[in-house]
């Protein structure tokens, strides 16, 4: 049976070890929000940056961290030049992460750049990832917003799983939806495998996951297989999987039909995977917003009042609202 080890610290989300958290020092990010989506160019950084601004303006202390290590450009979205010190310094120089968080000019909002110019920057080794994760978790802030890179690489998935709120951004078009689902399934099954491993039921979970024909096995099927050998492990596994509750944002909404894509994705995910998803809202396609991005000006700063800015604020409010009624259960 595998036990919790150093490697698992990287891979297991903080919430799976709630008893440890209780005993942990108070210094930690109160809420971690990860913004991902699988595909590039869908507005992950736009959503991250403006989500951070909206949260900061609502009075929360926010740190935006660019963990798109190979393609970091969150600083550009905020109209800043690339900070001198970046996440790479945590690994190469042992710099403490607090010193990397630089002011953005917006009250309550700091930025940690992820730009890493080393050749293998986008794919840090497990030990380096562990270090990064531990450092990020130790940040003293109300909200830590992680802007993830494209693709489904392990470190991207692990950052997503690290978060209390995994925000999935997609555009209402097939390529984006396809990548978003691929990303989502990769994250779900990694969470499943990690949890099964920590519970000592990895072989059963693996056997259940081995696909039958072309149909993908669902979390419920895996839980049932595990229950045959250990009902307790199955119950724990089910709790963990139920907590895999992704928050959806549909970007570049042009029509009511585009809006309905968000609701339909939530419904489809539940239908086929038996898991809940929250639709935080849609963000309108907005020429003005596009112009601002080109000028490297944050939408919520220079385009406040535009439909897309208003909707981004609504997304932030919906996210904060999720924490209120459920804060005790997390």
């Amino acid at each position, binding site marked *: 049976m595998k036990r919790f080890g150093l490697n698992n610290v990287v891979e297991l989300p903080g919430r799976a070890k709630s008893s440890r958290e209780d005993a942990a020092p108070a210094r930690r990010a109160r809420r971690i929000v990860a913004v991902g989506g699988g595909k590039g160019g869908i507005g992950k950084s736009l959503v991250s940056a403006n989500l951070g601004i909206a949260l900061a303006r609502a009075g929360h202390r926010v740190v935006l961290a660019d963990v798109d290590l190979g393609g970091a450009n969150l600083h550009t979205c905020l109209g800043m030049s690339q900070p001198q010190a970046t996440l790479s310094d945590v690994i190469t120089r042992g710099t403490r992460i607090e010193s990397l968080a630089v002011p953005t000019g917006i009250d309550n909002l700091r930025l940690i750049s992820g730009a890493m110019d080393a050749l293998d920057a986008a794919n840090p080794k497990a030990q380096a990832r562990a270090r990064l994760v531990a450092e990020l978790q130790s940040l003293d802030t109300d909200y830590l917003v992680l802007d993830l890179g494209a693709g489904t690489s392990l470190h991207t998935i692990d950052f997503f799983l690290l978060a209390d709120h995994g925000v999935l951004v997609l555009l*209402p*078009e*097939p390529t984006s*939806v*396809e990548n978003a*689902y*691929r990303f989502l399934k990769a994250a779900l099954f990694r969470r499943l495998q990690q949890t099964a491993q920590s519970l000592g039921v990895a072989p059963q979970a693996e056997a259940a996951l081995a696909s*039958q*024909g*072309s*149909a*993908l096995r*669902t*979390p*419920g099927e895996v*839980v049932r297989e595990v229950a045959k050998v250990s009902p307790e492990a199955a119950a724990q596994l*089910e709790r963990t*999987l*139920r907590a895999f509750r992704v928050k959806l944002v549909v970007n570049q909404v042009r029509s009511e039909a585009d809006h*309905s*894509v968000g*609701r*339909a*994705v939530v*419904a*489809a*995910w539940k*239908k*086929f*995977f*038996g*898991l809940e998803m929250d639709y935080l809202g849609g963000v309108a396609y907005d020429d003005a917003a596009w112009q601002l991005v080109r000028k490297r000006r944050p939408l919520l700063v220079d385009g406040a009042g535009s439909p897309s800015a208003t909707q981004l604020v609504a997304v932030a409010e919906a996210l904060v609202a999720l924490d209120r009624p459920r804060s005790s259960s997390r």
Partner: protein
Amino acid sequence: MTTVEEQTLYDVLEVEPRATVEEIRAAHARAAEAFGPESVAVYALVDDAQVEALRERLAEAAEVLLDPIRRASYDRSIGIQGPGMLWEEDEEDEELPPVEVEEPVGPGPHPLEAEAGLEAETAEKPPPAQGDLDFEVAPGDGQFGRELPEREGPAASEPEVATAPPEPPPEPVAPPVESPVVESEAAAAASLHGDWAEAMPEVSPPAPEPVAFPPPVRAEPRARRSPPPLPRSSLGLLRPAAAQARASGAVPEGTEGTGLPVRSRLDIPPDAEFNGELLRQVRESYGLSLQQVADRTRITRIHLENVEADRYEHLPATVYLRGILVNLARELRLDPARVSKSYLLVAQRAQARGP
């Protein structure tokens, strides 16, 4: 964390079991848009067959739940009791909810009743009290006709109905009828050890040589309208084998639960695999012939034969097979989701092994 295949038709449409017709219509419209061919939301989420199966299931949900008669029948099959359950009759009326009135309304009578020519009597009864129905449309006689298989003509059997002594029911003449129902859990367990005599509950009539699960095959026991006469309820309706045996005292107290025959009286273990053989046993425990089930469900008889014989290579594509299994399970008062899932799994495994 149930998925489409495991969900009830209500779950599939994401409505409450008490949803109104309007709510069901609206839910179906939403779902048709969300999961339709034009929708991007299911793109690359699962394979095409799964999406197609979902669409079929949504269509089935709307079709069944928007039809008051079929909805009542479906409710019964998934164990929802209440206003929808209007036709089940029982001698022990005091055990039944008040809605279980004399008039067998709701879905067409089970072939067990139909075999006794009860359709004639049913047709003569006044229409059901609509106040008891939870539907916007009360089932009328014409709707009964839709559900009933073609019959040879009610007149021939009518006298038999009229003259049959309602109570007490005669002793079952054919002993094997009892075998599916004497299987209390203890008896079933004991049967595994061949120790039937000790495990048999105390019953007054001389217990015939009982046969452990699987029950004896009674080839179309009620297909012929010939003596011996089968026991009848106070309404003169023929009962499933279970009720007959109970009437004769062969069934131990408590094994009947509420007396609502919503499931086969075969003692089916919770983890049983529903292969063709088990489905055949369940069918025969009700004394139904293949043809009767075919008439009743409108499933081609050859498909039913192939299902029961586990001739997977001759069965239609999964999407259609699932529909067949759901309908068959419903007819046999089994859990449609469990049966279809289990059977398809067995079939998949068998096919994976190759011929």
